[in-house]
C-alpha cells in the first residue's frame, strides 16, 4: 500500500466515508429541509397528517408577510449585525492578545487565569441577568445595541480566549525565537508571525462569536425594548400565547440564517482548512 493510498484509504474506508457523509448530510439537512418546506406551506397543510405537500399548498405568503414587516425584521437584522460585528471585533481584538499572552508569554499563573476566565462561563446567565440589568439601567443604557454588544463580550471574550489559547499553545516555539532573533519584539512577533499563521482559528473564533451574538436571546430579551431589538426577538414574536404562526416564524428564521450562511461561505476555507496542509510540517 502506497503512502498516498494509506492516507486516503482503500475502497473500504472510501465506502465508510461516503456512507458517513450521506448520513451527515441527512442528519444536518433533514430538519433544515423541513424548515424550508414549513416556510413555504400554509399552516393548514402543515398540521395535516401526513403533511400535505401538494403544490396547491405551496405559497410565498409567509415570506411576503415577513418581508412586509420589514420595519421589525429589517431593524432586527440591522441591530443583530451591529451587535454581532461589534462583539466579534472586540472579542477578537481583546481576546487574541490575551490568549497569546496566556499561552506563550510566561504570564504568572497563566493556567489559573485562563481557568478563571473560563469559570465565568459556568455561572448561568440567569443568575447574573438581574444584577446586570440593574447596572445597565442605572447608567441608562437599556435598549442600546452597544451595551448589548458589551454584555455579549461576557461570553464571547472568554470563549475566544479559550479557543485561541489552545491553538497558540501549539505554535512551534522556534517561530517566536526566530522572530526575536530577527528583531521583532513581542508585539511585532504577535502581529507579523502569530496572527497570520492563526487565521484558521481566528476565523473559527470569529464565526463562533458572531453566531453566538447573532442568536443570543435571553440578554436581548431583558436588555432591549423596541429600538435595539435583535433578530431572535423578532423571530420569537411569531410565537404568541395562543397562536404560533409557524410558517412565518420559519420564514423569518430562514431569512435570519442568511447572514450566517454568507459568513460560512466566505470563511469556509479559513474556518478550518487554513493554508496548505502540512503548513506546520516538521
Amino acid at each position, binding site marked *: 500500500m502506497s503512502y498516498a493510498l494509506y492516507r486516503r484509504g482503500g475502497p473500504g474506508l472510501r465506502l465508510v466515508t461516503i456512507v458517513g457523509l450521506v448520513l451527515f448530510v441527512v442528519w444536518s439537512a433533514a430538519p433544515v429541509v423541513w424548515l424550508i418546506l414549513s416556510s413555504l406551506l400554509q399552516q393548514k397543510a402543515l398540521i395535516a397528517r401526513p403533511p400535505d405537500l401538494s403544490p396547491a399548498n405551496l405559497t410565498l405568503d409567509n415570506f411576503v408577510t415577513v418581508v412586509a414587516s420589514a420595519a421589525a425584521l429589517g431593524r432586527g437584522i440591522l441591530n443583530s449585525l451591529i451587535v454581532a460585528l461589534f462583539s466579534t471585533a472586540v472579542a477578537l481584538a481583546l*481576546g487574541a492578545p490575551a490568549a497569546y499572552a496566556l499561552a506563550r508569554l510566561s504570564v504568572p499563573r497563566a493556567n489559573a*487565569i485562563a481557568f478563571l476566565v473560563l469559570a465565568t462561563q459556568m*455561572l448561568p446567565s440567569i*443568575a447574573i441577568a438581574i*444584577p446586570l440589568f440593574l447596572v445597565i439601567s442605572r447608567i441608562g443604557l437599556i435598549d442600546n445595541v452597544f451595551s448589548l454588544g458589551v454584555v455579549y463580550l461576557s461570553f464571547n471574550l472568554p470563549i475566544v480566549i479559550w479557543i485561541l489559547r489552545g491553538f497558540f499553545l501549539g505554535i512551534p516555539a522556534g517561530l517566536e525565537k526566530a522572530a526575536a532573533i530577527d528583531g521583532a519584539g513581542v508585539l511585532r512577533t504577535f502581529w507579523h508571525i502569530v496572527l497570520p499563521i492563526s487565521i484558521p482559528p481566528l476565523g*473559527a473564533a470569529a464565526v463562533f462569536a458572531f453566531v453566538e451574538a447573532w442568536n443570543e436571546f435571553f440578554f436581548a430579551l431583558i436588555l432591549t425594548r423596541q429600538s435595539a431589538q435583535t433578530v431572535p426577538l423578532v423571530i420569537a414574536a411569531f410565537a404568541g400565547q395562543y397562536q404560533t404562526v409557524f410558517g412565518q416564524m420559519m420564514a423569518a428564521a430562514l431569512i435570519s440564517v442568511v447572514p450566517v450562511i454568507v459568513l460560512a461561505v466566505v470563511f469556509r476555507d479559513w474556518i*478550518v482548512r487554513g493554508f496548505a496542509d502540512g503548513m506546520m510540517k516538521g
Partner: protein
Amino acid sequence: MASQATFEQRRRSAGLFLVAPAIVVLLAILGYPILESMMLALQRVQLNAGEIQRSFIGLGNFQRLLADETFRHAALNTLYFSVAEVVLVVVLGFGVALLLNHPLGRPGFFRILLVVPWAIAPVANAVLWKWILNANYGVLNGILQSLGLIDYYQVWLGSPFSALNFLLLVDVWKSVPFVALLLLAGLQRVPSILYRAAYMDGASRLQAFRHVTLPSMRGAVAIAVVLQTIWSLRVFDLVFVLTRGGPADATVLLNFLAYRVTFNFLDIGYGAAIANVIFVLTLLLAILYIRLVRPAEGAAR
C-alpha cells in the same frame, strides 16, 4: 538604549500588557453581577411595597435545596443530560470532523452545511423541533410511519425517559457543528509527518488513528469537552419551548429550574442558590474532564 529588563521579563510584562484589557473588560462586565448573584444566594428576597426587600439568611437557601425533591430530580436529570451530551457531541463531532477531513469531505458544501444547524436561532430551532416531534401532526411520526418503522404515532415527548432523550437529541443536533469545527481545525494541525512515521512503522490506519491522531488531538478535545460541558449545563431555551420541564418534571434541568424559580416564582435568592450550585457543579465537571482528557498535565508542555 538598552532597556533594563531581560528577555523573559520583557515577555512577561508584554504578556501582562496584552492580557490586562481582556481581564479588565471581563471584570467590569461580570464582576459585580457575579458577586451579587453569590450574595443573593445567601438572602431571602421579596418584592414588597414596590421595592425589593432582602434579608440575609446565611446558608438557608442551600439547606432548602437539600430537602427539595424537584432540585434533586433536576440535578440527576442534568447529570445524565450533561454527561450524555458531552459524550455524544464530542464523539459525533469527531466523526464529522474526520469525515470532513477526508479528501471526499473537503468540498466547501459540507462545511457550509455543517454550520447551518448551529446558525439557526435557538428560538426558531426549538419551535422547529417542537413541530417535528409533535405527537399528532409531527413530520417525524409521518416519516417513520411511511417507512413502516412505527405502527402508531408516538408521543415522543410524552414519557419522562423519551422526552429527556429527545431533548438531548435536539441539543446534540444543534451542538455538533461547533465542536466538529473545532476538532476539524485540530485535525488539520496534526503534523502529517506523524502519519508518515506511523506508515513507516507499519501501523494500520486504525492504529495510526489511535496512536497519532488521538494523542495529537488531546488539546482540541479538551477544549471541546470543557466548552460543551459548560454549554450543556446552560441548556434552557430548548426546555422552555419544547417541554416546559414536563411531563411531570421529567425534563427539568437545573438551569431551567433556576430560571423557573427566579423568573416565574420570583424567588430570586433561591434561584441564585441553584445557579451557584450549577456553577460549582460545572466547575467540578470541567476539572474532572480536564483531568480525564489530560492525564499527564506536564506532558503537554
